[in-house]
């Protein structure tokens, strides 16, 4: 348990470091997405999704794309579409299941 916590902390620190290395506009977007997505998180599984976005951002920045070219005009839609792909990581999914189970 403690070992797992320490491991997670280490991973989180490594993640933060990578975020801080991003070009400013990407860093801003990444932090905003992070803040937004944690609101829906059921547990630490959301971290995996965030790490994957970070990886994409790193690649896009290297490709010389500006952040708008990556998330388009709808950064919220981008975040929402990803959340939709990972319903198991959100609490809203649990609520929806409860609602569904309320009728026979």
């Amino acid at each position, binding site marked *: 348990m403690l070992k797992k916590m320490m491991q997670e902390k280490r991973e989180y620190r490594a993640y933060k470091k990578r975020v801080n290395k991003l070009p400013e506009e990407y860093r801003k977007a990444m932090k905003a997405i992070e803040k937004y997505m944690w609101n829906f998180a059921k547990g630490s599984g959301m971290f995996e999704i965030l790490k994957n976005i970070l990886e994409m951002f*790193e*690649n896009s920045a*290297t490709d010389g794309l500006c952040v*708008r070219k990556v998330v*388009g005009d709808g950064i919220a839609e*981008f975040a929402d579409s990803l959340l939709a*792909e990972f319903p198991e990581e959100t609490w809203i999914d649990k609520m929806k299941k409860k609602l569904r189970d309320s009728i026979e």
Partner: protein
Amino acid sequence: MKDLTEMLKGVLEGVVLQKIHAGETYGYEITKYLNDLGFGDIVEGTVYTILVRIEKKGLVIEKIKSELGLARKFYTLNAKGEQELKEFWERWTFLEKK
């Protein structure tokens, strides 16, 4: 073309599968391919979401290659992906005939 994306949202997955079918590729390359096809408003993030879905459905083999210290994912269709692509075109032809 404007507003094409909205109409084709559900179809994009098939088009992306088609591109991967043509040979090992990665996100940015797929985005450029779609832009060249005329999907002007497709951005990297859209393709990324589709790739995440395709990955989750288990339709691709991913290979991570690193360049400049960064990891980039390359995709190839597996048997299940090829089957899905075949079914996609069957659905498409079905619609076309209506």
